[in-house]
């Protein structure tokens, strides 16, 4: 086995392959198909302070090489998460990262404080400032660098865990948001969340999703996500988690070479629930074949001007 461990600032992972928030639930469902301990980390579904019902159906629709989703942050809320989901997750032995979202700065702060408590066993927090599917799901925080900076500054002091900020791609210049998050205390940036899209059902002449718009994910967005990781890598010094349409080892190598120190797998889990273990095995083989001792040798490699 090649050494697949990665270090993202204060965060150490066994492998660079994480399950992206919202696509792996709280792990329970996938546990019968694969060993959760083999994940680099499991980022749980976006968590809010109070339980959230989510959007009416239909919530998803397939698109060319991708899908739209408008789940609307359906989740059981902090209390149920702490009492029911987290203990089960800890028992499974997986590395748990909690994706949090709030309507107000105070909600983010409360979530960060409660989840940071010793003994919880949470590995890191991911600030979701980029969910396009609820009116106040953080998308406002994510699209304005100054509002984002203010939020991160407030959360930072109460968050004793490694703090990941997840950026939205629905902006003119993602490096501005990246720099704002970095300078206000983020340890790590993750990108990208989904792109705002719409499908119209021509038979009913109405938007297909009940929420009208949804977030586009899957291979369709991969070139856009790779470009953003590439740009952000050049703009900040903190480590990046890349995601957006990864299906194959080659796809994840594109992200590593663009500058991601780890990657997350989202929609690909749906067609192939075994994507993460498969990629882990393939990366191991690839590194051996290419004589790569540590993943660091290829992280950001595409920025070098020599071939």
């Amino acid at each position, binding site marked *: 086995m090649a050494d697949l461990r990665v270090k993202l600032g204060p965060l150490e992972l066994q492998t660079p392959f994480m399950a992206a928030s*919202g*696509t*792996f*639930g709280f792990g*329970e*469902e*996938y546990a*019968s*198909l694969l060993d959760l301990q083999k994940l680099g980390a499991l980022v749980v*579904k976006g968590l809010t302070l109070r339980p959230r*019902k*989510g959007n*009416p*159906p*239909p*919530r*998803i*629709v*397939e698109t060319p*090489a*991708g*899908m739209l*989703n408008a*789940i609307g942050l*359906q989740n059981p809320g902090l209390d149920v998460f702490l009492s029911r989901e987290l203990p089960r997750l800890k028992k499974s032995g997986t590395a748990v990262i909690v994706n949090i979202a709030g309507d107000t700065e105070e909600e983010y702060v409360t979530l960060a404080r409660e989840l940071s408590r010793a003994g919880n066993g949470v590995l890191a927090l991911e600030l979701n400032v980029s969910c396009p599917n609820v009116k106040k799901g953080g998308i406002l925080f994510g699209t304005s660098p100054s509002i984002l900076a203010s939020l991160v500054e407030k959360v930072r002091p109460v968050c004793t865990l490694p703090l990941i900020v997840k950026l939205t791609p629905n902006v003119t210049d993602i490096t501005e948001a990246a720099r704002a998050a970095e300078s206000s205390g983020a340890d790590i940036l993750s990108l990208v969340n989904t792109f705002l899209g719409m499908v119209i059902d021509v038979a009913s002449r109405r938007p297909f999703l009940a929420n009208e718009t949804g977030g586009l994910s*899957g*291979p369709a967005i991969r070139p856009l996500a790779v470009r953003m990781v590439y740009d952000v890598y050049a703009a900040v010094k903190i480590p990046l988690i890349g995601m957006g349409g990864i*299906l194959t080892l080659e796809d994840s190598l594109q992200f590593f070479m663009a500058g991601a120190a780890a990657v997350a797998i989202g*929609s690909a*889990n*749906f*067609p*192939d*629930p*075994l994507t993460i273990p498969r990629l882990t095995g393939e990366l191991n083989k690839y590194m051996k074949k290419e004589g790569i001792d540590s993943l660091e040798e290829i992280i950001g490699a595409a920025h070098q001007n020599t071939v």
Partner: protein
Amino acid sequence: MFLSGVRVMETEEVVDGCFSLLLEGKNIAVNAYPGQFIHMRIADNLLPFLRRPFSLAETFPEEGLFRIIFRLIGAGTKILSRVRRGDVLDCLGPLGTGFKPCEDLRLSILVGGGIGVAPLLFLAKKLQEKGNKVIMYYGASQSADLIPVHQFLPPGVEINLATEDGSSGFPGFVTDLFQTHLQNGLLPEEIFACGPRLMLQKLAEVHRNKKIPMQFSLEEMMACGIGACLGCSVEMQRGENETVFKRVCRDGPVFKSCEVVW
């Protein structure tokens, strides 16, 4: 729940645009019960990107075989309609919470609309094995769309057909046919139904009047198929004044009719 390659043993176009696939997959055949479904990967590339859900229409646990019956709708079912004997398909299943008939049932009524009849075929067989008398109501828009259900049913199941254009059986909706029988003295103990939402909605009205327990199999767009993505949620009553979203793929596809919010 198992993720495995299943081998195509038999393909048949049972009626124009409607196909039956007999598949070999021991885990699924042995463990599945009526109302459950499989989630099938159509292609090992991007087209289509997501899996497609299909109800189990029949199982042969000893032979390790099971059947799905599907209608050609779009890109996914088109590719699926062209598989050949010997092909291996990537299949996740059995999935979901299926029909849970009352233990001491004697007479069961099954109401199916269109391709929704598929899971009822499996249910009919199981109920009859348990000694029930099974009456099936099955409707389609026209005669040419009717699946030859007797082909997949044990002898003794009573089949009542309806077509909207009257080209076969009772002329009108299958729910109207069923209503007629109710008025003529039919006394169902429990009703199991699958079909278009409008059909189920009409049945729910019958329920409200007659207080017969009903179980409905619902459909919704699915991504993961196993309960993780919350993409397939539908609204359900919880108590008097509250509703929650439940997952068709895991909490369902079968729900009690009284739970469903229309």
